[in-house]
């Protein structure tokens, strides 16, 4: 029995505005409960919403980034339902006339292939507050700080056919929203939420009944949740059962999806245009102003890295995975003047150190300037590549700039031919037997034995001798 998986994703990206979408309260994360919920957010009698310009600008940027149709006129609608974290008893959202229309993104699959995934629409809406269920002696505590935070709900076409594709799409959207600076993409803090609509069918048949999966807060869990759900549905259908259209929560501890008891009844949201808000009308001047200073998009940047810096596609992709990383890399290139070194070190030592210490690149203790400075010293021969690792580690621990460390530890590479020659002579004198063996050996064996002499000279120079010169001089003198 061949089954085809059909997946659509609904992503809620919290927009990085300073204030809420409809009020002037702060959106800063981590404040004490209800200290950032003003009267408008609390739904006090008599309050009214006023739309945040920056939220609109961010929606326009997103529209441009996915090449979508931008609605010149869009309308806010009320979605009516009762829940403690929804103060007004309705959520202000957009239904029939969303601000962003159909668009598309290219996703990168494991095999290096790309394919297009359609975005049906994206609309602006307000976030709800948070309910806390523990520790209140049988009661639930409600924090409305988050109520009113702007969200961009991005709905994909049901174009994905595997959990892998879904993850690739989610990652792509994640990358885009970060690149254009509209969302910080922090899934742990809930600023980037992914819900998956999953169904199965026999190829060629109509769409099967879908289940909506929620409570997924990492890409890894997204993949697992979808895979679990697909298996569950297949098993159910093969046993003669029916898939129920419902919302299911992903339980990361048990790696399974569970039906949400409280949402058994289909909600009648009684949508109607919000009479407290007027239609949003965008004129060409405003749109042009917003899209004029769009940052370079990830695909374009990757392409440019490939062409301008001559980076291999896979390296270009790695270095453009996030905008801060790409920015960092380019700054290193700028300061050091050496693309190859920059690529090697950013993808190598720097990434290694970041992973080891569990840091984001924005928190790196070695700035792009500092790394670039160090790479300049390798390029100009002041230090060897091997010693540079020491220097990097010292910088990482806060030992100052590359130059300061090189100076302090006397790590300057010895390139004075005379000095090296002296060391070479000393080593040759100190190892007569090895010299004799060398002179007796054939070319192949000689190549291997040279390493011993080079090593001795490097040791004698405490690593500071320029290896190429050591090599050269040894070859001349050992003959």
């Amino acid at each position, binding site marked *: 029995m061949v089954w085809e998986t059909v997946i659509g994703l609904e992503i809620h990206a919290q927009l990085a505005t300073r204030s809420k979408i409809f009020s002037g309260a702060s959106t800063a994360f981590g404040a004490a409960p209800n200290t950032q919920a003003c009267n408008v957010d609390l739904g006090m009698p008599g309050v009214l919403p006023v739309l945040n310009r920056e939220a609109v600008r961010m929606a326009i940027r997103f529209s441009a980034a996915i090449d979508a149709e931008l609605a010149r006129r869009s309308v806010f609608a009320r979605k009516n339902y009762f829940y403690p974290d929804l103060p007004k008893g309705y959520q202000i959202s957009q239904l029939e006339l969303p601000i962003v229309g159909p668009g598309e993104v290219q996703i990168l699959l494991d095999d290096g292939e790309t394919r297009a995934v359609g975005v049906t629409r994206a609309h602006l809406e307000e976030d709800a507050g948070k309910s806390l269920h523990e520790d*209140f002696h049988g009661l639930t505590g409600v924090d409305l700080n988050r109520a009113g935070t702007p969200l961009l709900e991005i709905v994909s076409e049901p174009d994905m056919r595997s959990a892998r594709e879904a993850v690739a799409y989610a990652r792509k959207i994640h990358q885009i929203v970060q690149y254009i600076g509209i969302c910080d993409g922090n899934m742990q803090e809930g600023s980037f939420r992914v819900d998956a609509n999953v169904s199965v069918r026999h190829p060629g048949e109509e769409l099967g009944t879908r289940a909506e999966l929620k409570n997924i807060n990492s890409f890894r869990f997204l993949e697992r949740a979808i895979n679990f759900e697909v298996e569950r549905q297949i098993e159910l259908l093969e046993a003669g059962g029916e898939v129920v259209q419902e919302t299911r929560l992903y339980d990361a501890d048990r790696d399974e999806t569970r039906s949400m008891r409280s949402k058994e009844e289909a909600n009648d949201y009684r949508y109607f245009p919000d009479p407290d808000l007027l239609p949003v009308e965008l004129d060409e001047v405003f749109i042009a102003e917003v899209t004029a200073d769009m940052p370079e998009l990830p695909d374009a940047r990757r392409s440019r890295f490939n062409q301008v810096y001559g980076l291999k596609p896979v390296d270009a992709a790695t270095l453009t995975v996030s905008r801060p990383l790409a920015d960092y890399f380019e700054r290193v290139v700028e300061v050091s003047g050496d693309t190859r070194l920059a690529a090697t070190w950013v993808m190598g030592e720097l990434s290694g150190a970041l992973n080891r210490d569990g840091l984001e690149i924005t928190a790196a203790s070695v700035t792009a300037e500092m790394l670039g400075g160090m790479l300049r010293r390798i390029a100009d021969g002041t230090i060897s590549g091997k010693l540079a690792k020491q220097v990097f580690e010292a910088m990482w621990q806060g030992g100052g700039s590359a130059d300061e460390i090189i100076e302090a530890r006397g790590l300057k590479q010895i390139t004075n031919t005379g000095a090296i020659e002296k060391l070479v002579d000393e080593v040759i004198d100190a190892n007569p037997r090895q010299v004799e063996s060398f002179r007796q050996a054939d070319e192949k064996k000689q190549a291997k034995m040279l390493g011993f002499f080079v090593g001795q000279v490097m040791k004698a120079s405490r690593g500071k001798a320029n290896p190429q010169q050591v090599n050269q001089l040894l070859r001349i003198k050992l003959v």
Partner: protein
Amino acid sequence: MPLDRSDVEKIAHLARLAVSESELDAVAGDLSNILDLVEQMDSADTVGVTPMAHPLHMAQRLREDRVTETDQRERFQSIAPATENGLYLVPQVIE
């Protein structure tokens, strides 16, 4: 179109309004009368007419993205029925 008891129960549930058993019939009657009044709309020919959600032909004003509200939790919660540690309390919600 008359409404009956079960219609009223459904609507009352959607609106989260308690309507007692004894009231159901009377309410159904009242609502039915109102719907009779409202049904007079049927006589209007509205084919092709644009719905008017607003008397004003204005576009939505956009507000500058600035934090203008300060923390007034104490004030706001002084009129709340039940709070603890800055949170609003409600009977437990099971998810």
